[in-house]
């Protein structure tokens, strides 16, 4: 009278595939339902397109100075007006998107692997290594991020490359902490013990098995951090510690327009709007990614 039967391999495979499809479908439904995230994604896609097609979209050369036309208000010729050196602000904002994307990308590419590596090593080997690495990251974390970035940027000298390094240095500790926490949770899993008993080297385990498990929370964290990274970069630009003239970096542009704020408001205001929109886009997407990857949300 038994009603159970053994599931054969083909059946198992079919069920796994069904589960995966269901997961993707659920993710899509969540993405679609989350209107804000759709908006955020749209903004980011727009940003990418603008950056990619900048030469086509811009109306002028972002570096071209026409002193005769300085501080002109927005018009058909100059959509966003001109700045103190007669440069077209619209074109500079467009090209600035490339700068912003580059900075964000490079900071992420530097700080995330660095942080993950340190975190995983720290969590995996434990004891002395862990203590040292974590004390180190604590020291970095003792400074508010912006201050640390400013400090390093000042120390390394002005310039966009130094700013990128500075921000990356200020950022890696959070990823290290996160990766370490995940590693600690996973390190004693049966799964890992099995692989270790099969003779896998520590390196292989860390890179091949533990790191992938950290990925989803790191991705969530990174996407939530992107906005802050861009704001920090803009802040450095504003203070004169990041991108240097004549680079069309948005923070720098806001700073340029400061002295003309009363009568020529467009010089400072419009680049700032660009920053606002882009950071909003990243934040929306970050929130959305967190919602999708967070198991709680999926159940509702």
């Amino acid at each position, binding site marked *: 009278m038994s009603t159970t039967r053994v599931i054969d391999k083909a059946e198992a495979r079919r069920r796994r595939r069904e589960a995966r499809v269901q997961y993707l479908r659920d993710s899509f439904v969540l993405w679609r339902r989350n209107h*804000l995230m759709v908006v955020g994604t749209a903004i980011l896609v727009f940003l990418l397109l603008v950056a990619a097609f900048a030469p086509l979209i811009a109306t002028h050369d972002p570096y071209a100075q026409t002193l005769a036309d300085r501080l002109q208000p927005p018009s058909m010729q100059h959509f966003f007006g001109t700045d103190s050196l007669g440069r077209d602000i619209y074109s500079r904002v467009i090209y600035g998107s490339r700068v912003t994307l580059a900075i964000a990308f490079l900071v992420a590419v530097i700080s995330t692997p660095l942080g993950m590596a340190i975190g995983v090593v720290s969590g995996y080997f434990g004891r002395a290594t862990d203590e040292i690495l974590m*004390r*180190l990251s*604590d*020291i*970095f974390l*003792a*400074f*508010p*991020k*912006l*201050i640390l970035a*400013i*400090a*390093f*940027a*000042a*120390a*390394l*000298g002005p310039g966009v490359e130094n700013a990128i390094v500075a921000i990356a240095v200020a950022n890696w500790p959070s990823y290290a902490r996160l990766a370490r926490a995940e590693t600690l949770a996973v390190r004693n899993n049966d799964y890992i013990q099995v692989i270790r008993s099969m003779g896998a080297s520590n390196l292989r385990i860390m890179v091949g098995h533990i790191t992938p498990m950290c990925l989803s929370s790191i991705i969530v964290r990174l996407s939530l951090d992107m*906005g802050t990274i861009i*704001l920090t970069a*803009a*802040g450095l630009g*504003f*203070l*004169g*510690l990041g991108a240097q003239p004549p680079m069309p970096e948005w*923070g720098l542009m*806001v*700073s340029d327009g*400061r002295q003309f*704020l*009363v009568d020529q*408001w467009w010089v*400072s*205001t419009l680049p*700032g709007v660009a*920053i*606002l929109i882009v*950071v*909003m886009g990243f*934040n*929306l997407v970050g929130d959305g990614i967190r919602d999708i990857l967070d198991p709680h949300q999926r159940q509702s």
Partner: protein
Amino acid sequence: MFQYLLRRTVTLVITLLGIMVVTFFISLVIPVDPLASIAGPQAPQETVERLRELYGFDQPVYVQFGRYMNRLFHGDLGTSFQTGRPVLDDILHYFPATIELATVALVISILVGIPLGVLSAVYRNSSIDHFSRILSLIGVSMPVFWLGLVLLLIFYFKLGWFPEPGRLDIMLIEPPRVTGILLIDSLLARDLEVFWDALKHMALPAAVLGLYGLAGIARIVRSSMLDVLSAEYIKTARIKGLNEFLVLTRHALRNALIPAVTVIGLTYGGLLEGSVLTETIFAWPGLGRYLATAFLTLDLNAVVGGTMLVALTYCLVNLAVDLVYAFLNPKITLAEE
């Protein structure tokens, strides 16, 4: 409790030492030759050499470090190149202004942020929820320096509702300095005119910082309340027949605020950061502006001293947050760390 404090203090001291080391090395890396600034561009080589000896820049790194630590322990943070005064005096002079601004901003953030977060959670997906979430989103996405400029443009230059950047009207005299915090000092001296003027000057910069803080707090309160509201014990409270308001305040909020406390602490740190930019724009004579100028002019001693103080404050705030958190949450006994 005592053991915990002891342990935390030890960690704090180690971290502080680490901070000092890091800032020292930062100052080493700073490429500009500080001596050139003191001596002036015309100075002959021998003057520079003698200055070098005097300041000990010719010694190997570890000796310099030793001297540096030694001076630190004697409370000597060196002299600022820009102001010519001892750095310690400078930062003690400017620090209260920043504390004043940051604290007022924090109060605004809390008073507006918490109710907003609660309403957002209770009336989920309603228009107030949408409004609050969009406001929070904008608040965290906005560059602080840009908002400052925009508010200045609109409310000072165009509308004239608020006074010029600065802490106090030029014509007014500051009250005798007790705490360094104008709002308090003026009340102590019963100088209401100064009090009001200081308040008006503080409005815009506090609003800028406050919006940023508010955004973070509203978000965490919302998410925390949502978590709490789905908990079993909330159902129990309803089963008991408790009215909804008390369910929210007595049961839900008390639990939801616990994680919010941590964020409030972090927010205070964020306000300290933001003050660097905000004070620059509003000509606020605080530590933020001092630090920003120090970084730009590569005023070594000021950089080191100022950064250390900020880091120290941040550490203390975090420690306070942890203590408050442990106090509020009976599940955490400080012994089990």
